[in-house]
């Protein structure tokens, strides 16, 4: 191993220090969010809670979880995330690959066409009428199909596919492999970092998306998790206190506490799966040497 020069060691130390400071600057407010979600209402009303919960209280979580609607909403979201992300990944990779090949005849104008749609967005009412005309209104399809491909994600995919050495793919082509197989057997395994990134982005998009369901879904049984949460939080504005619901259930729930609890609940699953994805961001050796 080459010995580090003094300036390099100094840099490493500074680097670690900066990163730790950054992590602290981000972590500390998040701890506060967690503490608020677990605190009793009176303490919150007195603005006493800093980094530690006061009057440890799970009711903010219970209000969300104990409701039958929650389980339903959760299942809806799982379904949408699974089906949606699958559709997203399939379409995105299939579209990105040809556009990443410099020799593809239609490359320039198709890419331009696609970018155009990212910059020029359709207004709400025509979009609504379109979804309606496909019979997707008030169905889960409305949450999946209109967002089948994100141009941003596709461009990222395309860019990464472009960076793969052409000679490798050439060799496969000479051997008679079809373009589709090349995508499947060679390009995709080599593109794990970006594919996992896109998987994450799409999954998180579906997980967090409440706007589509706000517009397209009216049946309460089809409400996904974020919409369910969004509605629960927004009811407070209209009433003088928390709705009768919470008083009836004898839960000590506060608007602030509820707001934080719902964020924690919505974030927790992502945080739990992230480590599985993250290892693909740390290891690069396999991919790298394959490329050589």
């Amino acid at each position, binding site marked *: 191993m080459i010995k580090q020069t003094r300036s390099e060691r100094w840099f490493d130390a500074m680097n670690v220090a900066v990163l730790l400071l950054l992590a602290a600057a981000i972590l500390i407010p998040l701890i506060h*969010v967690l503490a608020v979600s677990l605190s009793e209402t009176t303490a919150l009303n007195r603005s006493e809670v800093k980094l530690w919960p006061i009057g440890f209280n799970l009711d903010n979580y219970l209000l969300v979880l104990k409701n039958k609607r929650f389980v339903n909403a959760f299942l809806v979201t799982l379904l949408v995330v699974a089906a949606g992300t699958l559709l997203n990944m399939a379409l995105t990779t299939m579209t990105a690959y040809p556009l990443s090949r410099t020799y593809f005849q239609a490359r320039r104008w198709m890419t331009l066409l696609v970018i155009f749609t990212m910059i020029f967005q359709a207004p709400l009412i025509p979009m609504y009428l379109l979804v309606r005309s496909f019979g997707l209104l008030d169905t889960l399809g409305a949450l999946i199909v209109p967002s089948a491909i994100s141009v941003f994600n596709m461009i990222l995919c395309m860019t990464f596919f472009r960076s793969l050495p052409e000679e490798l793919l050439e060799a496969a082509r000479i051997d008679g492999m079809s373009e589709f197989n090349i995508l499947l057997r060679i390009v995709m395994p080599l593109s794990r970092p970006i594919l996992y990134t896109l998987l994450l982005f799409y999954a998180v998009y579906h997980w967090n998306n409440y706007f589509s369901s706000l517009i397209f879904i009216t049946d309460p049984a089809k409400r996904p998790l974020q919409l369910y949460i969004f509605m629960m939080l927004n009811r407070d504005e209209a009433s003088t206190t928390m709705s009768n619901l919470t008083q009836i259930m004898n839960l000590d729930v506060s608007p602030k506490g509820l707001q934080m609890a719902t*964020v924690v609940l919505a974030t927790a699953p992502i945080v739990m799966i992230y480590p599985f994805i993250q290892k693909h961001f740390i290891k690069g050796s396999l991919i790298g040497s394959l490329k050589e």
Partner: protein
Amino acid sequence: MSNAVLSKTKYGEIKPKSTSAWTTFYKQRSLYAMVLPGMLFFLLFRYLPLTGSIIAFQDYNLFKGIMNSDWVGFKWFEQFFTYPNMRRVFVNTLIISLYQLIFSFPAPILLALLLNEVRRARLKGTVQTIVYLPHFLSWTIVFGLTHMVLSLNSGLLNQLLQVLGFDAINFLMKAEAFRSIIILSGIWKEMGWIAIIFLAALVGISPTLYESAKIDGAGRWQQFVHITWQGIKPAIIIMLLLKLGVILDSGVDQIYVFLNPMTLSTGDVLDTYTYRTGVVEGHYSLTTAIGLFKSVIGFVLLALANRLSKAVAGEGLY
């Protein structure tokens, strides 16, 4: 006239004197087949409703529908151009977008590069996991957190100032501070999430490149300049071009929550102006007109930047 290079076939390179477009099309039919579902999607779910943008030139009445609404030409464009505070709105939009380009754009890149230099995988992983979490908070919550830090009476920063002997400052009500607050809170929230993209780019760099460089005696800095930077450049260029395409989008969700009457002079942007016209007659048409305007500017900017990028760096979006 197609300049497409024919794929090498089993029978060696074939370079005919002239290639008709149809021949190329046929040869590349599998690529076309792959791209077909996606293009169909774009056609149906992006271009078709986009024709609805025509309401920007109408006095769209949702009971009459697009077919029967009156035509008003450029009326809405005139309306928002002649809004007396429009100059201020434009200036604010441009300045905030500029700040975002200068500060918010590089921040995740810097973060990714710094993380990349960390040896210990566990430290790197832990920091990275923490740093993307704020992405999941809503802007309302982030404003609440900002309020806790900057508020006049109980804010942490003011408490610190008072301990040091200074007077408390009502940061949130100071127009001069508004843009900085927006940029800083934006970086705090999104930096870690966007860094994921750049980390993915960095991970894709072959380690053998680093190994051979070390063998050649290259130090950390040289490795960075010749390998790391080259590896991340395509991602940076693409992200930059994409950002330029939507340059006039200021992040209305954030700005709306942070704005108050004292900070309108520096914070009122095109998107908040649009939002304020509220749900009134003509609102849909006005919103669409403003959206069209932003899109045209963004697209022109993108086209120019793309050309420049290809000339200078050899990389472009298309």
